Structure formats: structure tokens, C-alpha cells
């Protein structure tokens, strides 16, 4: 029923019309099988017309009891399980776990192993960000860039296959060093990739990130302020996209990162507000360039040598104790909190997955947004369900 009222502020001939429309909130299930949730995540959305009024994530569809398994198998036997949390960056997961176990063992990997670890971690970061940006384009309706991104990722998977035989779940970086040294010609193949990638990077930038449609869909959408990001424990591109200058590779030096020259990319509101979906993708895009730079420096500095610490064998017995080690994964801080009692099996193996924490804040961004932006916001967090559910 429409009723019109006269408002003294109105000019001659104008009429204020208020519609007395009764609306009802609708509950919509986004997932568990939804292409934009990147796995089996179910988000229960509540919408008033086009506007979201509430959101609640339901996790656990991919829960595989990683922490429980960690208390049942040997320290080294657990390594393959780390591949399976964030299956898009398995090298980084192996590295995070290995560094934590090494801390309890009291050993450091030899220098050549550290260089190869950094090369692999950064290559995997590029591979992971390529999927992140590519699939994000797909979430918001750009299908083609995904194929461009996967084209280069395929080359990276070939590089990984050559060094360890696996394309997705590597178990290659292990406590004490590496499974084996890089085969002949491998470093040259990496070098060829870094040169090629420099040429290709502009294609994703022009085709996807800098296009008008992409900017319209992402700028000023899903803004995470600096305070919100810190309070909710966000990390990785999610935190840097919000303008916080924090990167564990620079601020908590491990491996050989302190010998490399690189910049930490921080969101500055390049097309809209600081901390919007565009900034997060901007950070991912330019991090790939920086990773490429780091790999090139590693290739220049790497020397021959051992790749496994002589004191570390197959049966690990760390001293009793506990350690928390977090490293910069493509999605943020992957932390392992390990408690050992001196036996060959962990007492407690806690995994702090970055996607888990980053997703927690996404739920709070959705109310007030348009329904169509839900996919844009959840996609920009770049979650991998294997990690949120573990």
C-alpha cells in the first residue's frame, strides 16, 4: 500500500512516496557444492531481497582428523599428511612442518637445502597465487584468465615433478633437509621459467586484474580494515591487503630469506578503499613478481653441498619440549605447535591454518553486501577447504 506525504523540504511538484512493503528474509544455502566456495564449504546466507542480512559458515565437510593422526604416527610418517591441508601449496606445508620438527630436534638444514627450499617455496607461492587469482576471476565471471594462469602453473608442476616425482603432494622437504638433491638440469629449468614468467605476468594483469569489469566488481567491496584484520588474526595477503606491513619472510627471518632483496607488497587502496577485494588481489599479483625475483637471486647464490643434515635419519626422536613455528604460506601464517615427550610420536600436533582464520572474518564482511558480492568476497579470501577443515 502506497501512501504519500507532504514534506516541507520538497520543492514544488515533488512528492515523497513511501512504499509499505512487507519483506521477508530468505535463507540461501551457498554450498556445500558451489563453485565459488572452492570446495565443500557451506555458507548459510540470509538475504532481504538483494541485501545480505546474515551469514554463517558451516565447516567440517572435509575434516580428516589431521591432528588426531599426528598423535598416532611417527614424526616423519606425518609428513605426507601436511601435503593435504593446503593442497595448492604443499611445498610450503612440508617446509612449515619440517622447520617446526627441526626446532625440536635442534638442527638446521644445510645451506644448499635451504636455498632449494626457498626456491621451491617461492615457486609454489607463484603456483598457488596463479590458481587464486585465476579462480577468483572465474568466481566473478571471467573465464578465460583461468586458462592463462593454469598454463604457467602446468610448467611449475613439471618442475616439481622433475625434482620429486609428484605433481601435487610432494613430501619432498623433510626434517633435516630434502629428500634428494636437485637432478641435473633442474636449476636451469627453473631459470628458464623465471624468465618466461616475467613476460607472461603482464598478460594476467592486463586481461584480468586491470580490466574495468574486474575493478568494478572488486573495488570497495568486502573492505577489511586494519583493526578488523588484526583483531581476527588474519595473515598473508588478507592482512597485507588491509595495509598492514607484515611478512614473516622479512620480519621473522628463517632459511636464507635475510640474504635476499625483496619488497613486501602492501595494499594501499589502489582502486578504491584500503583492504577491499581489489587490494588483496593486487597483493597476490605483485607477490608473484617478488617471488620470481627471490628465485632468481637464489639461483645466483646457490652452491654445491649436502642437502640432508647428517644427524637426522628416518626415525626421529626430538627432545621433550614444545615449539610453535609459523611461516609465511601463500595464504598466510601456517603454524605448527608441536609437543614432544621424547618418543617417536608427537604428544600434540596442532596446526594453525591460515585459511581457517581468514575465513572467520569473511562471515562478518557479508552482512550488508549485495548477494552477488558474496562470491566476490569469499573468493578474495582465497580459502582452501583442505586447510580450514584439516
Amino acid at each position, binding site marked *: 500500500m502506497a501512501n504519500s506525504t507532504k514534506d516541507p523540504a520538497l520543492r514544488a511538484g515533488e512528492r515523497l512516496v513511501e512504499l509499505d512493503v512487507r519483506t521477508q528474509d530468505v535463507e540461501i544455502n551457498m554450498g556445500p557444492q558451489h563453485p565459488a566456495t572452492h570446495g565443500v564449504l557451506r555458507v548459510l546466507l540470509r538475504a532481504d531481497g538483494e541485501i545480505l542480512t546474515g551469514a554463517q559458515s558451516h*565447516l567440517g565437510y572435509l575434516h580428516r*582428523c589431521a591432528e588426531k593422526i599426528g598423535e598416532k604416527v611417527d614424526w616423519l610418517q606425518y609428513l605426507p599428511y601436511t601435503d593435504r591441508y593446503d593442497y595448492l601449496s604443499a611445498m610450503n606445508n612440508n617446509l612449515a612442518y619440517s622447520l617446526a620438527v627441526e626446532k625440536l630436534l*635442534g638442527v638446521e638444514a644445510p645451506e644448499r637445502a635451504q636455498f632449494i627450499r626457498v626456491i621451491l617455496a617461492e615457486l609454489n607461492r607463484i603456483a598457488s597465487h596463479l590458481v587464486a587469482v585465476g579462480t577468483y576471476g572465474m568466481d566473478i565471471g571471467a573465464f578465460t584468465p583461468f586458462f592463462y594462469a593454469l598454463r604457467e602453473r602446468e610448467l611449475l608442476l613439471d618442475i616439481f615433478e622433475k625434482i620429486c616425482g609428484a605433481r601435487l603432494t610432494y613430501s619432498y622437504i623433510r626434517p633435516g633437509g630434502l629428500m634428494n638433491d636437485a637432478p641435473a638440469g633442474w636449476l636451469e629449468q627453473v631459470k628458464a621459467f623465471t624468465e618466461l614468467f616475467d613476460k607472461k605476468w603482464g598478460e594476467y594483469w592486463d586481461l584480468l586484474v586491470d580490466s574495468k569489469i574486474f575493478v568494478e566488481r572488486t573495488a570497495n567491496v568486502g573492505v577489511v580494515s586494519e583493526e578488523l584484520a588484526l*583483531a*581476527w*588474526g588474519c595473515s598473508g595477503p588478507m592482512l597485507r591487503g588491509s595495509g598492514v606491513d607484515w611478512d614473516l619472510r622479512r620480519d621473522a627471518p628463517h632459511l636464507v630469506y635475510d640474504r635476499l632483496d625483496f619488497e613486501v607488497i602492501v595494499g594501499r587502496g589502489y582502486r578504491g578503499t584500503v583492504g577491499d577485494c581489489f587490494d588483496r588481489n593486487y597483493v597476490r599479483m605483485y607477490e608473484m613478481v617478488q617471488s620470481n625475483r627471490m628465485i632468481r637471486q637464489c639461483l645466483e647464490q646457490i652452491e654445491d653441498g649436502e642437502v640432508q643434515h647428517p644427524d637426522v635419519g628416518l626415525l626421529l626422536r626430538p*627432545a621433550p619440549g614444545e615449539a*610453535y613455528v609459523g611461516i609465511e604460506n601463500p595464504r598466510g601464517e601456517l603454524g605448527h*605447535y608441536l609437543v614432544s615427550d621424547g618418543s617417536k610420536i608427537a604428544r*600434540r600436533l596442532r596446526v594453525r591454518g591460515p585459511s581457517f582464520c581468514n575465513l572467520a572474518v569473511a562471515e562478518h564482511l557479508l552482512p550488508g553486501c549485495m548477494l552477488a558480492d558474496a562470491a566476490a568476497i569469499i573468493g578474495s579470501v582465497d580459502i582452501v577447504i583442505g586447510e580450514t577443515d584439516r
Partner: protein
Amino acid sequence: MEVLFEAARDAAAALQAAGFEVELHQPNLPVYAPEGESKRLAKKHKEEDPVHEWRGDPYLALKDRSRLLELCRFLRDELGYEVLMDATAVDFDAEDEHLWGVYQFLSVGRKRRLSLKTFIPKADCRVDSVTAVYPAADWHEREASEMFGVEYLGHPDPRHILLPDDWVGHPLRKDYQYPDEYHGISCK
């Protein structure tokens, strides 16, 4: 690594000055042993001081868990630990009377980390939720709650998170009994 020790020492001193009863625990094994020495050193420590042999990170232990929330507020507001990276629980031994509540803090501004441990009696498995100070604890506490049976007092949304809503028992407790079946699905 040295930063960790420094942060723990500073935080312990500041907290003790503010009237909190915290104890600083430091590992007595060297962080990184020289090559070829790690096993020998570990063995030597085991023989000399088997009770206190402990490697890894330093941590603060808070005996009185009722002051946890107050302590967290102090850490955030006075000492600049603006991020709660992780909150979890540990059941070290089925025989133990206490669970550990373990919290990892991070200061982005001062580039420091801190590890805090509190003790939750299994007979009265309750502790204050720190979500009021660190919203980040929300999902971590939900997870610790379903896995260990800790009740977080004042948690805004204490549902299960990873396990099904009707799951019985707390899987990460050391005395957990595996169920025979779940809704007709054999678990053996």
C-alpha cells in the same frame, strides 16, 4: 630465536610488575646444536637433569586461570600484542589432572611473539573465553571445545565447528574411546 627469549623475559617482568602470577619457563637445551652434536647433547642433558630436560620455545605459565581474560587485555593494551595467532588445548597425558590451554600471541608493531600456557583442571573443565579481547579466538575456541571438552565461558557461539553437531566425546583427549558406529556407519 633470541627475540623469543627476549620477548618472554620482558613480558614476564611486565606482567609480574602488574601483579600477575606468571612463571617464565625456558628450555635448558641449546636451540640449535652444532652439527654432529645434537644427539650427544640431548643424551648428556637426559643423564644430568632428566626432569627438566625441555627444548624449544620459552613460554609463560599462568597458574590461576581466572585471571586469563584480564591478562590478555593487559597483553593487548599495554604490551602491544595485538594479534592472537592461535589458541588451543593440550592433553599431555591421560593421567594428568590438568589440560593445558595454550595461546600464541604476536605483536606486529614490535615484531615479537609470546607463548602463554594456562592449566585447566579436567574435573572442572572451564575457562574464560578470550573472544572479548581477541575475536580471533572465536573459531579456535570452538575447535578446542569440541576436541577437548573445554567449556569456554562467555563464548558467543559455542557450537561444534569441525565435528558433526551430535558427535559424542572429545577426540583429542588421551582417554578418548573410539565409537563403534556413527549413524549406522561402522567406525572400526
